[in-house]
């Protein structure tokens, strides 16, 4: 092959490389990443449905910057190592904005990829403090309050409403659960008057939690605070009730939603959890819930509304910036006020939501109901 042919080949190949993104530019590619299968799928799917409905609404109104939105999906099963692969694939497939991920551990791992690629990431459910408060994730925003706010609410409720003196803090050793319990421990220590009688991690998915339940019983804790998700919580709650241990049980948004009552059945009765504020009196929220029921034949899941809001915020920021370029988009994110189904919301300088928070719920007759 002579030199001319060689350079021609190289030239043609490199033109194909440059041309590839050009073909796709008549739509805006938004990716939804999170757990769409696996045991945490109920959370991921609830958020995805919110995003899907928001995309439909936006496309009906003419899209973003006059272009239709095309939704791409990535399934990370809430595992950090899978999340990195998913992120790499989404970026190389040309995603321009990302909604996700669902779990904090996966989000932290995946955001290394998005940050380097200069893509805005917005999550409907990742609550770990490190994502916004350390400044290491400048491209990250979220439509749910952070764990610090949640821990403050949980500890305050435990001390002032439940009036407990001894608490046991149990977590699943993960970024989300352990982080949450460390925040709770700090908050209790600052408040004083409440003894932390136990602070332990358990192996998630273990066969049996009898020994830790015996330990809780011996510690005479009046309240068990759980940092983790619903499947392990269900096992521990059942053993606590079966072993007649006299203690209350409280978790965060990891056990909020229908998943825990479905899994633990009658044993879930009386369990406390914090979750996003109940905004069901908002007319937009009601319209969306009705739309969800018509489309999927069931009530929306935990992160449906926050997922919808994520997509709304991205669209609003892009319209405001007039471009999808990273710096302009990022600057616009801090400026916008979104008329969301949770009410008007915006973002503070860390990327945390302004205008929404958490409430405390309790399982009564098989459903979470607000108690504070």
């Amino acid at each position: 092959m002579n030199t001319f042919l060689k350079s021609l080949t190289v030239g043609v190949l490199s033109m194909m490389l440059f041309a590839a993104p050009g073909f796709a530019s008549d739509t805006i590619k938004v990716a939804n990443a999170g757990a769409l299968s696996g045991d945490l799928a109920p959370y991921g799917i609830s958020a995805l449905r919110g995003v899907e409905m928001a995309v439909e609404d936006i496309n009906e109104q003419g899209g973003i910057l006059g272009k239709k939105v095309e939704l791409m999906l990535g399934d990370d099963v809430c595992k950090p190592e899978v999340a990195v692969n998913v992120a790499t694939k989404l970026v190389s497939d040309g995603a321009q904005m990302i909604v996700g991920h669902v779990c904090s551990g996966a989000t932290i791992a995946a955001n290394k990829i998005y940050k380097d690629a200069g893509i805005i990431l917005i999550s409907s459910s990742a609550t770990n403090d490190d994502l916004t408060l350390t400044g290491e994730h400048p491209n990250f925003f979220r439509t749910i309050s952070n764990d610090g706010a949640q821990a403050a609410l949980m500890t305050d409720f435990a001390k002032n409403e439940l009036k407990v003196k001894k608490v046991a803090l149990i977590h699943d050793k993960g970024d989300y659960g352990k982080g949450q319990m460390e925040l709770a421990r700090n908050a209790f220590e600052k408040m004083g008057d409440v003894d932390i009688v136990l602070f332990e991690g358990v192996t998630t998915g273990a066969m049996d939690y009898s020994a830790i339940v015996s330990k809780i019983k011996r510690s005479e804790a009046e309240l068990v605070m759980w940092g983790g998700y619903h499947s392990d919580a269900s096992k521990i709650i059942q053993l606590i009730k079966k072993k007649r241990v006299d203690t209350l049980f409280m978790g965060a948004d990891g056990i909020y939603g229908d998943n825990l009552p479905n899994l633990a059945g009658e044993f879930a009765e009386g369990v406390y959890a914090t979750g996003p504020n109940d905004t069901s009196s908002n007319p937009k929220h009601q319209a969306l819930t009705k739309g969800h029921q018509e489309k999927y034949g069931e009530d929306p899941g935990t992160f449906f509304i926050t997922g919808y809001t994520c997509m709304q915020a991205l669209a609003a920021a892009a319209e405001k910036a007039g471009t999808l370029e990273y710096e302009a988009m990022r600057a616009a994110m801090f400026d916008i006020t979104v008329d969301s189904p949770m009410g008007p919301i915006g973002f503070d300088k860390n990327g945390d939501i302004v205008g929404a928070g958490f409430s405390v719920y309790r399982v009564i007759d098989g459903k979470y109901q607000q108690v504070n």
Partner: protein
Amino acid sequence: MRWISILLGLSGTGAVGFFAVREIIMYPMYFFELVLGGLTRGSIYALIALGYTMVYGIIQLINFAHGEIYMIGAMTALIVATVLGMWGWNTAVIVILAFVFAIVYSCAYGFTVEKIAYKPLRNAPRLSALISAIGMSLFLQNYVMLAQTPDYLPFESLIPDFQFWEPFAHIITSVEITIIITTVIVMILLGLLIKFTRIGKAMRATAQDKVMAALLGINVNNVISATFVVGSATAAIGGVLIACHVGQINFYIGFLAGLKAFIAAVLGGIGSIPGAVLGSLVLGISESFFTGYFWSEYEDVFAFAILVLILIFRPSGILGRHDTQKV
């Protein structure tokens, strides 16, 4: 120098012993609860470990798909119980049928796995059979995940809270005591099977010398199949019992349980049936003590550390035979 080290050693042991005795005397009920919790856990390990150890004893294969057989047992019981529950059948009948179906299904799976994945490789290098076993394990996990669901499923306890057990329920629940008693019964039956029946004698003969057994007219293929079936049956019982205990299952429960049971089998001396039971109880109780008296964070680290220690100081396990084997 020697005296100093002996003195230090003695005082160290003395101090640990003193605190241990003081702890037990001050909180005897707590100690008792941990023992019972450990026995429950150990019983489940034992029901699974039997399958590992019997199969190893006869064909020197670590059947890594065994944990999945246990999971399939629990899944079958859940499906049967749900369907019969919808038809409004009597609870006692449901319990019996759920166990029967779980055992039959698991046995069928164990039998088929052996025929498909191990029999063609019987004369192949041992590594091939091992890889085949790992492949089978992954296949069964993914098959159940796709055919059923990746979510956790609620498993309503087939064993109710007994009224008469109420005074003791805060120490050990009805389900836990059922697990321990069932395991003891299964062990006795298995002991009788191996000791006195024709197939049991054939199993022992095959384990000692496969070629000689075949020369004497024992159908070695049938014996191997029977071993897989018996191991699968005990694993299925374990699967149903643990699901009753924790109230939920998914496709992945077999992995960790299988791994722990495997450790228990190695701990006791793989190939030895009393060894598997002893190893399981030792592992269950020491895990329970470790969580109870130290930190539950390191429970699994501890379990694997025991394994490493045993393998260093007693490579053939607590009750294992001491003949060297080429691997």
